[in-house]
């Protein structure tokens, strides 16, 4: 379970997150929506332990992530996978080596065992043909899939997705969404997804929270969000120009 208790964070004079509290249950797919710069990625980075909040606490299965030592953070991160917006592939390693990296570095299993796991994950994301390619030779969508394969290679309990479908064509977006659903259905993974792709959010979410200027202004099931009377939520989900949100 992931818990954020009254988390606030400011960068310089700008308050990025203001007194945010949320609880994400095990096995749940929780989607955070909001405008660019609303603080969505900052929340994700707090959960991953890259940022410590100015106020409040971030707990993963009851263990405090903020202020934790390197060893505790490493232990907590072993439970997590993170799909970065750009894929964040190591540029001098090919696709296969990128996916194998966490297993090789932590010496998890024999060489044959590692090969079996990596080949399996590549096949799952339809990347077997690209195994020998370098990150510079593959498309943005492929990079994301490789990033996802690397994020799930150690079978994490929690996966954090930063804009998993941004810059992808609709078919590829649907494929990534399908992967996220399958992770939840087949492996019981807890997913936290940051996106402003409403189609994707409705497809994958158990619950959706909308962040506006660092504050959660609405949280509920996709149907509740769709039928929300909050003018900010209405304008955002409809992608309308008229409303209280300034473009």
């Amino acid at each position: 379970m992931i818990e954020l208790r009254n988390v606030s964070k400011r960068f310089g004079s700008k308050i990025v997150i203001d007194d945010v509290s949320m609880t994400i249950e095990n096995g749940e797919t929780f989607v955070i929506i909001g405008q660019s710069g609303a603080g969505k990625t900052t929340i994700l980075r707090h959960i991953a332990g890259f940022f410590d909040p100015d106020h409040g606490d971030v707990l993963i299965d009851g263990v405090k992530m903020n202020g934790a030592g390197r060893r505790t953070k490493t232990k907590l991160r072993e439970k997590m996978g993170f799909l970065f917006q750009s894929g964040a592939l190591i540029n001098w390693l090919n696709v296969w080596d990128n996916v194998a990296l966490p297993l090789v570095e932590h010496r998890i299993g024999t060489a044959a065992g590692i090969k079996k796991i990596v080949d399996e994950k590549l096949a799952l994301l339809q990347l077997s043909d690209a195994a020998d390619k370098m990150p510079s030779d593959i498309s943005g969508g492929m990079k994301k899939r490789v990033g996802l394969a690397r994020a799930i290679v150690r079978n994490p309990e929690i996966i954090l997705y930063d804009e998993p479908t941004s810059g992808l064509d609709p078919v590829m977006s649907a494929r990534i969404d399908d992967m996220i659903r399958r992770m939840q259905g087949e492996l019981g993974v807890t997913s936290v997804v940051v996106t402003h792709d409403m189609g994707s959010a409705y497809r994958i979410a158990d619950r959706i929270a909308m962040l506006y200027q660092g504050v959660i202004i609405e949280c509920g099931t996709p149907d509740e969000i769709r039928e929300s009377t909050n003018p900010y939520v209405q304008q955002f989900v409809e992608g309308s120009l008229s409303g209280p949100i300034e473009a």
Partner: protein
Amino acid sequence: MKELVQKSQSGVYDLFSSVGDRMLSQIYFSGFTILLIFRAIVESRFAFRKWREIVKQMYVSGVKSMLVCSIVALFGGMILSLHTGVELKKWGQQDAVPILMINVMNKEMGSFLTAIILTAFSGAAMAAELGTMKVSEEIDALEMMSINPVRYLVMPRMISMMLMVPALSIYTVILGVFGGALVSYFQLGLTFQDYYHRVYESIWVKDMFVGLLKSLVFAVIISSISCANGLLAENGALGVGRATRVSVVSSYLMVLIIGYFITSLFYGGFM
């Protein structure tokens, strides 16, 4: 009038604030770099596991820079012997050129020239490479995979530099002295035999030790400053460019300053 006073007050406040910010960021950077050196030393217990990466970095920083090192060392030695030789010849003292050459190259120029070349060649590349990794979230990805970036990236680079800078320094000394031999033979009338005999007589173990110690310290300075700048890069391509520039300038300055203090420690100086 009141407005003018308020304006000047705010100007003074801005000035102190920006000076304070710069000082704080310098202190933070220095602390980060020193800590990085210690962490890399601690992580060097995993050096055998990372031997492939170390060899790759040795090739990148050492072997690939050999041509530049050769040209700089040869012509550096030739220029040095030409200047001193022409002056000494006026007094009939051109025989002293080999002694001067081996002393200067061994004590100072060998390690200094190598450090300067490798700062531009490898230090800049390290800062740019790690900086690009930082701004494209690859360092974060490593941390997320519980892979220690110091063990994975910094330690192999530091060890490879600690092996290659002393090796290239010796190479630079040999080529520099050879450059001096060429000028002495063709322009000063010394035979190669006389030149090398005098060089051989003037080689001191202490000088060699000081030269190698300097090159080892320079290797740590260049790699740590370059890696620290790369790891602290932010703001996209602009930040990577800044990190590269700052790493080269800081490394040059530190090589000069620390170089002086090592010389002063072994040969006496005012500080």
